């Protein structure tokens, strides 16, 4: 069990004055079987006229923020404390992936069925399926195959910030074999959905420096202290959802902090808004993740 404190600060400096800004934030970490949200608060500058919090369709925490007077900049700071358990279960415990696939085709698990269909950023793609089949060999247990697939991304794709944009499609990612964590997550999701394995997109954070134990320091992982993205695979009724990080080729344990789950990025956008005025603007994002105990 580990505890983290997170500060996630987003600032917009607007080129021209904004008269009215309405924003929708998915910044407070989600409550999940292995993750407890102990404390959280959102601080918005300027002070909003109205805020309201609720749980969305996917179970995520969401805040609606309305700023109704002129302002030239917007800062949203999310502070939270979460507690994370190492997921139980071993990777070879679940069913063979073909068994799960058959069950999904028969609608045996309606609760997770939503995650086998295409979504705005993830079309079902033959190339993605072919790539996934390298790991999903006949009879392979779902979780084991998923980890193998995550590792294939690490070994066959290049982490290349700037090489892609949010508009880059899954076929383009597979063609170019480069991208950032969001791209790898989308490509992995496309492959699994083509095989009818339920899979979700996860937005969150990754704390890279494990505590100094025995004088040894784990190497820095990509995505340190920044928002990160990985996938969550439903590995059958016994194992449930297990998370895998294709960017870092690993099964998620207790160093990934999930913020929101969705079908793809479009469901978990950290902050989106409608503003009147504003001109051009770029956000400035700062994330700090601190280990609280041990």
């Amino acid at each position, binding site marked *: 069990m580990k505890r983290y404190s997170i500060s996630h600060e987003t600032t917009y400096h607007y080129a021209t004055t904004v008269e009215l800004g309405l924003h*929708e934030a998915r910044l407070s970490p989600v409550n999940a079987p292995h993750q407890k949200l102990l404390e959280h608060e959102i601080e918005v500058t300027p002070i909003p006229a109205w805020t309201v919090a609720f749980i969305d*369709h996917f179970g995520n925490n969401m805040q609606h923020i*309305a700023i109704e007077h002129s302002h030239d900049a917007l800062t949203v700071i999310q502070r939270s404390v979460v507690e994370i358990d190492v997921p139980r279960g071993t990777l070879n415990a679940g069913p063979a992936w073909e068994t799960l696939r058959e069950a999904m085709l028969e609608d045996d698990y*309606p609760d997770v069925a939503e995650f086998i*269909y295409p979504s705005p950023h993830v079309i079902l793609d033959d190339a993605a399926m072919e790539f996934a089949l390298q790991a999903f060999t006949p009879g392979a247990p779902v979780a084991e195959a998923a980890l193998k697939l995550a590792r294939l991304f690490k070994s066959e794709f290049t982490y290349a910030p700037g090489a892609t944009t*949010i508009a880059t499609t899954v076929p383009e990612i597979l063609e170019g074999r480069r991208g950032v964590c969001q791209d790898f997550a989308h490509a992995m999701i496309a492959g699994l959905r083509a095989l009818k394995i339920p899979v979700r997109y996860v937005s969150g954070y990754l704390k890279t420096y494990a505590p100094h134990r025995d004088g040894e320091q784990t190497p820095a992982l990509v995505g340190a202290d920044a*928002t990160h993205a990985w996938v969550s695979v439903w590995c059958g009724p016994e194992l449930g959802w297990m998370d895998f990080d294709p960017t870092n080729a690993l099964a998620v344990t207790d160093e990934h902090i999930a913020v929101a789950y969705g079908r793809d990025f479009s469901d978990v956008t950290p902050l*989106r808004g*409608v503003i009147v005025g*504003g001109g051009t603007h770029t956000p400035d994002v700062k994330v700090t993740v601190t280990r609280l105990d041990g």
Partner: protein
Amino acid sequence: MSGPDSLTPPAGPAVSEPAAYDEMVSGKKSIRPHWREITATLWGMPAEIVREKQARAAAHLAAADQFLPENGDANQPIWSMDLLPLILPEAEWRNLSEGVVQRARLLNLVLADIYGPQKLIHEKLLPPYLVFNNPGFLRALRFVTSRNAPPLHFYAGDLVRTPAGSWRVLADRTQAPGGIGYALRHRAVIARSFPEAFRNTAVHRLQPTIDVWQSSLQSIGAAFDESPGIVLLTPGPHSRFYPEHVLLSAELGINLAQGSDLTVREGMVYLKTLNGLARVHVIYRRVDGEYCDPLELRADSALGVAGLIAAARSGNVVILNLPGSAVIETPAFAPFLPAIARRLLDEELKLPAVTTWWCGQDMPLREALSTPDKFVFQPSFSSDAPLIDPATMSADDKTEFLTRLTATPSEFVAVERVHHSRTPVFGDKGLEPRPVVLRTCAISVGDTWRTLPGGVARIADRGGDQRPVFRQGGLVKDVWILKEDTAGEASAGGGLVELRKLHRVADAVGSRAADNLYWFGRYMERIDSGLRQFRAVTARLTRGTPGPRDVMELQRLARLLEATEWLDEAQALAPVDSSAFVTGITKALGPRGVVEEYRTSLRQLGIALRDRLSQDMWRVVSGFSRALQPGETDFDQALGNLDTAVLNMATLSGLVAENMTRGMGWRFLEIGRRIERAMAICSYIEGLFGDRPERIELSVRISLELCDSIITHRRRFPMDSYTLPALDVIMTDGPNPRSLLYQLEALRNELDGLISHDPLAKERELIDRHLAALRAPAPFAEAQASDRLTELTDGARACRVDLGLLSDALSRNYFTHVNAPQTIVTVFSGRNESRAAS
């Protein structure tokens, strides 16, 4: 029956389609009892009278539809109407109505479940694919419920009658279906053009349903406030259904609002009015769900209101139907509804759909693939898409379709072929039986439902059993439900004596409407001024070879037309006896000329203000004919047409003056008119006197002519020969409604009546200064030409400039120019980019 042969009834159902049920003629080839009165009435009338009635019905309907948007020919109605209604006896209707109500109840529960606990999916009564892969399922609406109203408030069902005589649902319509407005209009048209039909027939009236609907909306709103704010949310004048939105909002006594008329503040929805923000509690939605809120739904939507869904989720507003209600229109739900009805209602379906199979299931797919010609096919999620009919496909197309079906079976439903019942329609050769689809409507009232006793019958082409698509229009009929017990009610004239409750609503003038009304007023006067100038020119061009005085006058008028921006410089400076000048005038008056351009602008403003203009005003605005037809150069003809056009404008002014309520809206129109007319007078003075012309009397005479003040002048100055002091008539003559003083006084009055005129204090002062100058005793009486001329033209110029400042100030202070909001998304810190969409 003495009617001529052409109107004798058809000899039973058409031979080519023996299977279809005939609405009017029974199997024994006799007229069904509920059709006997109307057929007797018809056959008692000469054929040409019937034809004339039919033509008149078409004309009435076209007139009501005239204000349709510009795309395509605006005068082309999307509907045409058949004189003969579709008639159903009350007993049959009662059964049908029960079936419709049960279906609405059921779909409401399904909708509530899909956006709530989703137990139908967990219990495997509804395949997850049909919800989670359904484009109509809007995740942002999950868990959005209202204590005051069901998620489904308005249901429409398209029904057909099978050869066995029973009704089936062809399509459920739950997004934001139209229908009641059209039914009301069709009833009005038929009552006007065929009143005889009601003489011996008691038809269920439609108005009581509207009244019930209104109180239902009121009671939903009453949970918030004893006089709740209710609006009909429309996509605006460019929607095909806008006429129905205008009609319904008036009938229901609620405000018509576009997305840009609404705003969300602190989680509450408000209508922007000239009095400030007015709270809205209930929204009757006629904008498709996904366009309702650019923040949580489609970011590229300009039709919605940012923050609307958050307001609904917080319980501060009720949106009817719930955005996302389109999910239950899904054709592929049909095979699952009988079991769902047993589970949720513990009832059997009284009004099932036309038998439908979802190809996402193995058995139906095998059947569909082995005998495809037995079925027609439809996309699983679109009830509007054209039917796919393998039987009529070429071999190649069929192979291609079957390949698609095999590859993605879940995307299709197979539907049994049904012969739709036939109902008689007036055709070229008398009555013809044609397939009919009946649109029925039901409205939630508290915990129950109320059906409209009537509806819209749509007629497919002779060909076959297509599904007419509502938004594409086509041939329609009124629907009559005959009253069983007509005691004391006979000849109540179904649609004739529709006594209605008076619905009076506070006239909340939106900022946008005020803006449009202001410009409507300005364009009215601008066109009037242009028409008069062109008429003055044309009159002089028709006098044969112009003499020296005509030439001089024409030159002055030409320069004035340039100064007032009706002609460009090259046209205005051409010698007035040259062909270049004549061509310039011809062009300006002809098709796509500047005059027509302005009239088009006025017409567009008229469309935007359609809910505020009377039918008569609209007729004038839309009925202008151009002064010159293409290729025409006959100035005599043009002169006649310009006279008519000037009269048209006068008619419009008269209607504005006599027929519009003196509300805030009228005030803005009036302010626009006065400002523009005052500016025109100033322009005449500047343009005709600014260069100190010789023979000043010619300029004086033209000024008086343009200001329609020749008669006033003759009466006031009988001996005058158009000397400068005569200009008093159009400058300082208070009682003359064409004088500058009159305009400024009227303007000043209306400005004082604005709710808050403080923001205009500075501009009012400017106007006061001009008023004072004009009121000074006889300013031009003792004019020594050259001295006074300067004063006169300088004063006119200053006045025109100040009126421009006033116009800007009005616009700044009263018309909210809504900046198009933009959507921003923080993508992802790894990318450090943002995206803006308009």
